[in-house]
């Protein structure tokens, strides 16, 4: 086994849910659009513009193909945060006068959804932040019960960024259609991992990001359904690009990158996901050898790329310090700017201790069996070391119930 403290090479990347490397095939396709084909796709008067426009439209087709949509339903944005803001604020404001001013979302959504809804609350909308079940999934009956006569919009993510659970978008969409509620889905973490068939899914708006799927950062897209036709109010005003829904000169090279990344995803996702599932199972089996470990979120309705585990009685930030050989993220307060433990794990009803003790491993295209084996050995040795240091582990071993101890708050 390799030296567990080695720091002479970069850590093994297991944080694909945070971002992915740009696939070399994507990068190579992007470069000519920076240096050679640098025209503005909106320039209609010369070949520079025509070439750029053609590249943009080809990319639009590739993005549409991955999610089985019409290319005319794809609007370029700067990323999933912008797509979420455009969808939620754009649709809520457009339909407020006819449908009402109540919004439903889930407590475990990405901040780009939660905070967009909070902003609408400040503008006079009301909102329901539905708690998921302890496995992270939305209870359909509870969702249906949350709909009010004045509900205008619901926003539910397809794949959760922290725990990787997959929501039943079809069933939730059907409930929305029946009630006349606009349905937005944040699919930033889903492309290339879950099959998406927008021609048949009851979804009105869907957000995409390139950089979670081996494309570049700074580019994303919003699907805006044409049948039934969904209208949104623009949030960015200017030259009327993207049929007025999102002004701003199109970033040709970024768009080409997203198109190529999504083309590759479409071609390779079946075999890639099978390989990643094998790696995830190997990682899970290895880590479950460690005492007092808890998988966060449902394992069956989950992308294989994500494994979120709490190692009880070990604090997440000190664990991340200990495992410098791998690049992972933690739900611990100490790794966040807010000093609050993960709101996603809290919403599942996990105790603060377990939220503090969580590590998210996310596996991707370039993860190997050797990476997984190294990770398992590293985790085993470092958790043992930190538990030696942990007064909570000592108490647990002495049979003391930590939840019954009176702790001084600080």
């Amino acid at each position: 086994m390799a030296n567990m403290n080695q720091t002479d090479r970069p850590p093994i990347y297991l944080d694909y849910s945070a971002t992915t490397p740009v696939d070399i095939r994507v990068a190579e396709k992007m470069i000519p659009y920076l240096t050679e084909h640098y025209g503005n796709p909106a320039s209609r008067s010369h070949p520079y513009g025509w070439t750029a426009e053609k590249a943009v439209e080809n990319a639009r087709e590739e993005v549409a193909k991955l999610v089985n949509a019409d290319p005319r339903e794809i609007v370029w944005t700067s990323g999933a945060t912008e797509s979420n803001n455009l969808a939620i604020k754009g649709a809520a404001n457009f339909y407020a006068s006819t449908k009402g001013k109540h919004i439903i979302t889930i407590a475990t959504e990405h901040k780009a959804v939660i905070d967009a809804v909070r902003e609408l609350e400040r503008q006079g909308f009301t909102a329901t932040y539905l708690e998921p079940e302890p496995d992270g999934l939305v209870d359909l009956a509870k969702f249906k019960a949350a709909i009010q006569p004045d509900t205008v919009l619901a926003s539910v993510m397809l794949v959760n960024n922290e725990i990787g659970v997959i929501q039943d978008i079809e069933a939730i969409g059907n409930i929305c259609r029946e009630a006349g509620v606009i349905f937005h889905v944040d699919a930033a973490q889903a492309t290339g991992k879950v099959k998406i068939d927008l021609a048949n899914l009851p979804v009105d708006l869907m957000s995409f990001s390139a950089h979670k799927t081996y494309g570049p950062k700074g580019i994303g897209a919003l699907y805006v359904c044409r049948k039934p036709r969904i209208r949104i109010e623009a949030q960015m005003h200017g030259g009327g690009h993207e049929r007025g829904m999102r002004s701003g000169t199109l970033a040709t090279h970024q768009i080409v990158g997203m198109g190529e990344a999504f083309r590759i995803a479409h071609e390779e996702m079946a075999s890639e996901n099978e390989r990643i599932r094998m790696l995830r199972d190997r990682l899970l089996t290895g880590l479950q050898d460690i005492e007092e470990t808890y998988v966060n979120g449902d394992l069956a309705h989950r992308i294989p790329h994500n494994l979120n585990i709490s190692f009880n009685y070990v604090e997440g930030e000190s664990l991340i310090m200990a495992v410098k050989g791998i690049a992972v993220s933690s739900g611990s307060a100490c790794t966040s700017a807010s000093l609050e433990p993960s709101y996603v794990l809290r919403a599942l009803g996990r105790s603060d201790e377990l939220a503090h003790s969580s590590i998210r491993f996310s596996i991707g295209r370039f993860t190997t069996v050797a990476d997984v084996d190294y990770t398992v050995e590293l985790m085993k040795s470092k958790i043992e070391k930190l538990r030696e240091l942990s007064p909570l582990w000592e108490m647990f071993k002495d049979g003391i119930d930590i939840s019954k101890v009176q702790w001084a708050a600080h």
Partner: protein
Amino acid sequence: MAYSDKVLDHYENPRNVGSLDKNDPNVGTGMVGAPACGDVMKLMIKVNDNGIIEDAKFKTYGCGSAIASSSLVTEWLKGKTVDEAYAIKNSAIAEELALPPVKIHCSVLAEDAIKAAVADIKAKQSARATV
């Protein structure tokens, strides 16, 4: 998060990890913090008949700065009188470890742990004196 070399040193090679016999009348224990807050420190000191701290041990659940703060104070405590120990300020711990502002609470917790351990040993001693 970027840590100072001193924090990293204490974190990688923590000094005086472990426990002392809590039933020993010369051992004082201080347990501070809460699991929900992400840090718990247990500090134990052994005081001889001259009031000098002979030994100190710790166990800490928490971030790297919390572990380093408690490791550092066990080094500082040995050879001090309990009154000298009681006078240790969190600012001295934070300065020695070059803690960033968001980690100052770790040094506060270490100071609290010393005070709790000293209070425990004093309570044990006065209980003995009244017997």
